[in-house]
Each structure stands twice: as C-alpha cells, then as structure tokens.
C-alpha cells in the first residue's frame, strides 16, 4: 500500500486493522464445538484471548473463527461441559 517514503503518513500512525492477519496459521490444534453438549454459558467466548469464539447475539451458539484462532485451547480447558475438543490440524 506504500511504495516509497513519500507515501508515508506525515507522522507515524496506523491506517489499517489487524483483521486481515491470518493468525490461524499459528495453530496446531483446532477447537471443535459440539452443539449437543454446549449450554451456551459463553465461557469460551469470555476467555478467548484472540476474539476467535464468535457469538453473534445473545442466545446464539458460539462458533470458531478459524482464520484468527491460534489454537491455545483455553476454550476447551474452560468448558465445563466438555463440549469443546482440540483436534490436530492436518500437516
């Protein structure tokens, strides 16, 4: 988006968000949510460091944003119903 020093903003300031950063590529294990077991307590959503457990609105089931999820496993560890399992990504 910038080609030369002339294109830079006059002072150093950000102009984009991190949304297009594919942090999901860091992942070794992916969280898989079982809808049958999920009680929608939203613990996984509350504790996700990567804003990768998405609940669109109150009452919805959570789903995983795999483009960003780094696979830390906090959601699976904190799920009291065991509704989330960490499955190894294919090599």
């Amino acid at each position, binding site marked *: 988006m910038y080609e030369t020093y002339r294109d830079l903003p006059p002072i150093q300031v950000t102009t*984009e968000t991190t949304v297009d950063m594919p942090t999901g590529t860091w992942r070794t294990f992916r969280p898989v949510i079982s809808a049958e077991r999920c009680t929608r307590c939203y613990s996984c959503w509350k504790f996700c460091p990567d804003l990768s457990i998405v609940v669109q609105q*109150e009452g919805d089931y959570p789903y995983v944003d795999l483009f960003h999820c780094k696979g830390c*496993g906090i959601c699976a560890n904190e799920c009291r119903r065991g509704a989330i399992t960490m499955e190894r990504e294919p090599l």
Partner: protein
Amino acid sequence: MNRRKPRFTIPHEDLMHPGHSACPGCGEPIAMRLVLKALGPRTVMNVPAGCCAVIPGVWPRYSLRVPLIDHAFECTGATSSGIRAALDAKGMDDVTVVGWAGDGGTVDIGLQSLSGAIDRGTDFLYVMYDNEAYMNTGSQCSGSTPWGAWTTTTPGGKEIARRTGKKRILEMLAENGIVYGATVNIAFPEDLVERVRTAKAIRGPKFLHVFSPCPSGWKMDPSKTIEAASLATRTGMFPLYEYRDGQYRFTKEIKNRKPVEEYLRLQRRFRHLSPAQVAEVQELVDKELEELRARVEAGRK
C-alpha cells in the same frame, strides 16, 4: 443440562480486533478485551515498552478500536497526565485516559512517573497487567516476581535466588493517594468488569492490578491460562480486594482456600521448589493474607 436462558454476563461489544500479535493463550489480550468492554469507546490508551506494545500489532495495522499512544518505558504516568491535560484543554473531559503497563513498567522503571501522576491528581485509570516478570524480553525478574519463581535473571542453582516477594504495589499507591485501587483477575471477568466500571465513575487517579498469566514465561501449557489465574486467587496467592476512601475490602471472599501447591505445580517456573520450599511459600501466602485481612478489618472499625 443447564436450563437457564443463555445470556452475556459481560458486555457483548468488543473494542478490539482479532489478528493481534499476542502469543497463544496470553492473558493480556483477555485483560485488554475485558477492560475495554467495561470502559467503552470514549477511551484513550497509552502504553510503554512491553507486550502491551506488541499486542496492538505492527504498523500500519492496529488491533484496538480506541486511540492508542505509544511511549518510552518509564513514562506511563507522565504521558497519561499529558494526555489528560490536553483533553481537558480541548473540552474532552468525558474521555477516560488509560495508562496500561506491565509489572516491570509499573513497579520498577515506571514507579516514579506513576507516583507523580497520582501526586498530580491526574484523572486516569492506570492498569498494571501483572505477568510477574519482564516477559516481553523473555522472563527476567521484576519487582513483581513472586518468591521462589524461576526467571532468566534469578540464577541460583539449588538455592532460591528470588528471596523477596512481590512489591505491594496497591498498598504503596494507596499511601501515595489513589482514589481507587483494586486487584482483578482475568479468570473472574464479571468482577473485573464491575471493578473497571467502579473506577471509571470516580474522578482522580485510579489503579487496577490485573493478574495476567504468561504461558511461555511461566512454562505452562497455553490452555491453562485461566485455570492458573483462577487458582492464584483460589489459593490466596492473588487475593481480590479493593481500596477506596482509606478502606480495604475483599471483593471475592475465598472459602475453602486451596493449597498453593495446586497453583505452583501447574507451572514449571516453580518446578525446582522442594516440598519444604513449597511449604515456605504456603506460609508466606498465609501471612500476607492475614496482614491483608488485618487491613480490611482495620477499615471496618
């Protein structure tokens, strides 16, 4: 099955984007997310060196949805005062200024300017995310490293090199003149949000001490971040309490306190501790809690 209606117990809106640069399982973005949820968009952050300068992303990208000003390591308090002064001069006194720094940036190198900001009566919220060492540089001992913990700068072989415990920063700042202070823990989001809201509503210098595990520095699995954080409070190693109007108050009473060993054995930074040393940690924690209880009791009189 739980039959209650599913509901959000903390604000739904996030003021943070995914794709940030924190390590997997890092406690700090959880803390950032929660604090920003509680504060809302009329917030200006400022951060010194530390993981807090990495997580927001690499230029030209940015992961927060509130303005952020970066600055040198030791000046979070001072920069906060400057931002506050200018906002007031511009008539933007509804904006909350947040100085956000790590434990090293607070209890060590940033202590002077934080003390100055409190002395100046700056209306701001200082948030110290405590991962108990200089983690951005790879686990060097800080004044907030707990007794006996391993870091790369606490050599000692079989001896315990870290023979002093965490500085009592909240108490230090209470004596300095903060109008509100609280310890909070990312494992208790509802409590954290409530404390932040309380702080936001009070004018003057406020301080939040956020417990924020670092899986890589603490040498534990990244999935254990919340579990470790929760145990820190449930064992009494990191009690949750607040300070206001000269009084201390427990914000989370822990009944059936768990032995500290449960917390310590989750992390390999304590692996070298002998059973006798673990007992020593237990004694220290018991004593600290007793002293805190005495401060709480003194306030009730």
